[in-house]
């Protein structure tokens, strides 16, 4: 079912990688020419590192080690770091595919001219998503480097976690794009930011979900960031198992659904 969804989102009247690449190429051109864009790029990196330092190290000194359900005992910083990593992969991708994407097609009219070319709306969306991932993976790689230096993971497990963070970005980026096609105006972004922040607080980020009431645990297990955090944590702590694969599957489905509905809605919205 998943493969059908992905396939139909991507092949429905023929997505051409060349044209998706051309959209990425446009963004690289704009990046080269605009100095201010670099500032945005750099600032996106510091946020998760600051969280890691203040909470992982600061709060970690008070909390000490924590014990997971499977009996693993981890220093608090080792527990928190992968959550920061997954969250920053989510935030990075969503910033690009919601806020920036909305601004580009509503106000900057970046795509008006592109729509007159063979490039299809879904190819614009995919191009933006790939671009978001290229940007996001720079943050992720640097953050993983910081984790290795701080001995919060090993080089080997950092390399294994890297593609997992890409999956997180693709899944949230794709769903973010559906939201963008439904946005009525900027006020809706506040709602989305609030939702993202709630996910950030409760998705087994700062405490194992076993600390919450059972009903609460069920709800958390339905939400996406929980699966992203758990998947990335399984890898950076070096304990992948079947659960990790389930988390990954959740995110693959999420990406497929995101692309499918984005493709359908964009066409209707842009080709008025």
């Amino acid at each position, binding site marked *: 079912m998943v493969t059908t969804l992905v396939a139909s989102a991507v092949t429905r*009247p*023929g997505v*051409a990688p*060349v*044209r998706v*690449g*051309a*959209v990425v*190429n*446009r963004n690289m*051109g*704009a990046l080269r*020419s*605009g100095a201010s864009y670099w500032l945005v790029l750099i600032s996106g990196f510091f946020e998760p590192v600051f969280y890691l330092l203040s909470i992982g190290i600061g709060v970690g000194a008070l909390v000490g080690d924590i014990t997971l359900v499977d009996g693993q005992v981890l220093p608090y910083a080792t527990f928190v770091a992968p959550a920061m990593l997954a969250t920053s992969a989510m935030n990075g991708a969503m910033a690009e595919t919601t806020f920036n994407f909305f601004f580009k097609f509503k106000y*900057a*009219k*970046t795509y*008006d*001219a*592109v*729509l*007159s*070319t*063979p*490039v*299809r709306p879904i190819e614009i969306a995919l191009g933006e998503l790939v671009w978001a991932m290229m940007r996001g993976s720079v943050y992720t790689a640097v953050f993983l480097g910081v984790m290795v230096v701080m001995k919060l993971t090993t080089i080997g497990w950092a390399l294994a976690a890297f593609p997992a963070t890409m999956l997180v970005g693709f899944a949230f980026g794709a769903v973010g794009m559906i939201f963008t096609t439904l946005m009525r105006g900027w006020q809706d972004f506040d709602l989305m930011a609030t939702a993202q922040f709630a996910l950030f607080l409760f998705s087994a980020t700062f405490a194992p979900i076993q600390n919450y009431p059972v009903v609460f645990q069920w709800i958390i297990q339905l939400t996406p960031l929980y699966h992203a955090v758990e998947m990335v944590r399984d890898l950076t702590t070096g304990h992948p198992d079947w659960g990790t694969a389930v988390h990954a599957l959740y995110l693959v489905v999420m990406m497929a659904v995101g692309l499918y509905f984005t493709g359908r809605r964009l066409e209707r919205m842009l*080709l*008025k």
Partner: protein
Amino acid sequence: MTDQSLIRARGLVKRFGDFTAVDGIDLDVARGEAFGFLGPNGAGKSSTMRMIGCVSTPTAGELSILGLDPVKDGTRIRSRLGVCPQLDNLDPDLTVRENLTTYARYFGISRAAAKQRALELLEFVQLADRAESKVEPLSGGMKRRLTIARAMVNEPELVLLDEPTTGLDPQARHLLWERLFRLKQQGVTLVLTTHYMDEAEQLCDRLVVMDAGKIVAEGSPRALIETYSTREVVELRFGESPLEGFRDKLVGIGERTDVLPDRVLLYADDGDAAVNEVHRRELAPSGVLVRRSTLEDVFLHLTGRTLVD
């Protein structure tokens, strides 16, 4: 003509909510032709152009572009079109050259070929010396030329130009006309909209006059003038107003009279003879101008309104 038609429309309709912008038009544009839509603001020209450009879905009616269905084959059609929209939508984040090379990539043109093509086109629209500039500092005429160059990157068979020279000074307009004329000579099919009759007369082999979403007349500029106007027009001004009273006093001179707020138009094949008759009747106009009939007169006759308000 149908299998030759690059554009064929039957009963084409575009509605926005319950407002009808294009109200059932028929079109046939042949290969190699320069075809125009002449009409005032709000006539539905841009809405029609956007449907032809496959960036707007028709509400009703038939439309075929290059023999293909724009709803099913939008991508294939657009790969063979060049589009110059009413408002320039150049990419402000890119340089003049990059605007062309980046655009070429959307058509799947290789990096090397795009670079070569950009060089030629910048030469063609006389912007080679501004290649590394950003778009913003360019003048209106330069931006327009760049947009036209961009429309040519994929060597299109059909070029759509929505009001190519609106807002430009006369010199910039003439330069653009001259470039468009060269394209036409190269065999490119041009479809353009305008509310300037001189532009329509200069560039179009054939045109339709559009008003309130409908086509009210069709033909070559010359044929339209012959059908809907006389060879010459006499413009009369009088010191007094209102001018309505002159309608009766001018009866029998020329073929027809139009009374505008500031002047009276007398349609006559021989303008000088008409003027002589006006003087013979001792109507004492304060100003007299005899001129050739234009598409403006055709439009006025067909719709009762002037083209540019």
